[in-house]
């Protein structure tokens, strides 16, 4: 992977490149920070927004760096006043079609991309009176994915992530030009489509047109959003996630783009089924069975004495083989390890198993 094939000139500097790499990929390695909107490194480049254009010596018009492959000897300029002007105007035009330019960061992983670029290029003038970009679908009552197409810029990232990353082909494009509309088969609700509610479209949308309804429900929770890297709790794939918290409350989940098992992908469970931890049904105190035959709340001291006492008694009256431990397939290593240590170190038996047999 470390081998380079040839050199190109990038902003006056000779830099190495590999066969098959795009100009954008080479530039990224050299921190050129070329602006993009329709680009997601995990997807096949489309070349739709033209924001990533660069000047290529010998070519009359700028070329899209995300779709143009680097070739030996190319001389490329990533920044010039002409390029910056072009990008600024382009952004102003794109922005003119949208109802909101700023969305809550809880909308999704990439939801702030457009707004960030508008600021970088001072492109909030509102000079252009844009046509309305798309028609939102407030009728879609699904509890996960907001479909606010009035903020859609037709970058097709959602359509591509669904097809290329998920292999689901649940969303498609209707019409062309100003009339472009992101939709589903038969223009229906997502529930009636091939959608599996994995949330990948939300996470790649650069404007928040597709947004995380469950996370946005927490937008009024005060405080800064903190992210903690951990692993999804639902299956053996072991997808990496960044849990978003504010003031000790989980407000949402983001896929970890560098998670080795998932590379940014998640399924409906990992993406949306996070709030069980704060459900009122959670046990908050130990319970012990009383004389009345019912379970009653108590403190740890009492509960641990009662728990320990029962094992001591069984051991004394029926021998060490009368105690058995079942470890969890869902709790962390430390739980399973401690369970077997308790049985082996405590009773000298191998009366221990986990729940993999069911």
């Amino acid at each position, binding site marked *: 992977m470390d081998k380079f094939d040839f050199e190109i000139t990038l902003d006056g500097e000779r830099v190495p490149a590999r066969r098959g790499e795009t100009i954008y990929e080479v530039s990224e390695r050299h921190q050129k920070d070329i602006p993009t909107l329709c680009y997601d490194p995990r997807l096949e480049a489309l070349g739709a927004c033209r924001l990533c254009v660069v000047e290529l010596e010998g070519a009359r018009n700028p070329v899209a760096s995300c779709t143009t492959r680097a070739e030996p000897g190319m001389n490329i300029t990533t920044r010039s006043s002409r390029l910056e002007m072009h990008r600024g105007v382009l952004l102003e035009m794109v922005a003119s079609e949208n109802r909101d330019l700023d969305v809550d960061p809880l909308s999704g992983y990439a939801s702030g991309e457009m707004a960030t670029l508008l600021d970088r290029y001072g492109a909030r003038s509102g000079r252009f009176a844009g046509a309305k970009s798309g028609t939102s679908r407030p009728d879609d009552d699904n509890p996960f994915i907001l479909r606010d197409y009035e903020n859609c810029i037709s970058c097709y990232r959602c359509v591509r992530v669904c097809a290329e990353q998920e292999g689901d082909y649940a969303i498609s494009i209707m019409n062309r030009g100003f009339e472009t509309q992101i939709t589903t088969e038969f223009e229906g609700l997502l529930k009636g489509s091939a959608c599996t509610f994995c949330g990948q479209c939300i996470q790649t949308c650069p404007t928040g047109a597709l947004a995380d309804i469950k996370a946005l429900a927490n937008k009024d929770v005060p405080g800064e959003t903190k992210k903690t890297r951990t692993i999804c709790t639902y299956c053996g794939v072991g997808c990496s996630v960044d849990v978003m918290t504010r003031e000790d409350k989980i407000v949402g989940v983001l896929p970890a783009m560098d998670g080795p098992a998932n590379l940014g992908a998640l399924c409906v469970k990992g993406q949306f089924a996070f709030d069980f931890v704060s459900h009122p049904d959670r046990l908050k105190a130990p319970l012990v069975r009383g004389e009345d035959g019912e379970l009653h709340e108590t403190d740890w001291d009492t509960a641990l004495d009662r728990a320990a006492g029962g094992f001591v008694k069984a051991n004394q009256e029926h021998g060490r083989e009368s105690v058995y431990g*079942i470890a969890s397939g869902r709790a962390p290593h430390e739980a399973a390890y401690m369970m077997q240590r308790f049985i082996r170190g405590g009773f000298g038996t191998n009366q221990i198993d986990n729940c993999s047999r069911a």
Partner: protein
Amino acid sequence: MSNPLADMEKPDVIFCIGTNMTECHPVAATRLKKAIAKGAKLIVADPRRIPLAEMADIHLPLRVGSDAALLLGMAHVIARDGLVDEGFVAERTTEATEFLEHVAEFPPEWAESITGVDAKLIEQAAQWYGAAERGAIYYTLGITEHICGVDNVQSLCNLVLMTGNIGREGTGINPMRGQNNIQGAGDCGALPNNYPGFQSVLEPAHQAKFAAAYGRECDLEIGPTKVQALDMCGDRVRAMLIDGENTVVTDPDRRHCEHALRSLDHLVVIDLFLTETAKLADVVLPATGWAETDGVCSNTERRVQRLRAAVSPPGEARPDWWAISRIAQRMGLKGFEFESAKEIFNELCSLSPIYAGLDWDRIENSEYQWPVPEPGHMGTPILHEDEFLNGRGIFHVIRYRDPAETISSDFPVWLTTGRRLASYHTRTQTGRSSGIDYLLSEERLEVNPVDVTNWGLEDGGWATMSSPRGSVKVKVEATNRSPLGTVFASFSFNDVPVNFLTGGGYDPVTHTAELKVCPVRIEPA
């Protein structure tokens, strides 16, 4: 898994058997779909027309519980058509002669008579897998939850050994583990036959090593499995500590299971919720949950990853390890003075050869797949590259056996069970996450539309489903996912306790329950 998840994008022939991957391991399935988009051929063996079967080039709709027969037929074709990797067989395996003689007796026509799958399809599938450059096998509980689960797995190993589809990128035999840390529970020694790191309890050297570490010598004798222990409740077994498992709902034969737990003198359950199992306990201890607990887990590709706490637990909830170690301390046991997950994980690493090169700090970035035999080792993404664990790969002579219970005039329909995309296990977690009900609010018995008519049922109406152990009422969904004569339900909903019906038999070696096959009778309710 013998190979990493990343390898799922690389095979040229994929053989999925007994795995509903798009629903149970969705993100892994996205990687397979990429291989398919690049032109890989997909063979799916499953009684039901699951989403993966819809994508397949060949779907082998075998009768539930007939996997071993299908695999014998495939092995026959591979041998007959000269697709055996002779070099691999000579260098890396043993007992091939007996095996090849054995499979010569089972042509695809015989397999058709048992499985109901067209012999031509069996032949084609075998030829594709046999001729593959990089053939990879993926399986789940559809293979193991049978009385012949071990036979099924060994039958798959036989195919792998015949064709040399192992030890290389994009190949392998890959069980997809169900629960998030079920791999880890095994890694940590929560097994009746192994100490941590899969070190056999029958080996005196291991006994001595753990006696030195724990200050107490352990029996040189394999303990009873959970299934056996439940049978011993009230008799040999009097007290149980159950961590985070809703045994009475997940296990087969619920009545038997509830009775077993009730007959204990002492039951302690650690969990997040007051589950059906916890309700039977004498003491219930509140555990910290996901995003509240620091710790470690292993995924299905043996990747050792850190879990991190992001929020505080509710009330007095404490980590499971804390509760267990404090019970031990109260009993006067020595050596349980642990104060952090880190300390515990590091002790595990010091005692487990497959974790010997790891510690808490080294796993920060999820880089390692065990075995990691010493510090500085890069981990082992692909198993069996040069050698099998015990030297040579052994061929096993497997015979087909009928399931413990087969259909009869009283119970003429095959019931098979499993999971669905939007729910996980007994829904103690997904059922308490908002929005999930929008996708899946109740259990549905999946029945072929022709059967719906023939049995006098109605799509959306109610049916009574019975086995020799009990009956349940369940709503009917007419769907072509179910073949004629076979129905499907999940065990996720407590109000449709399908596991009142299951439990006809167990694998004699692993004691895994035959949850995938249960003859039932279905009548309009």
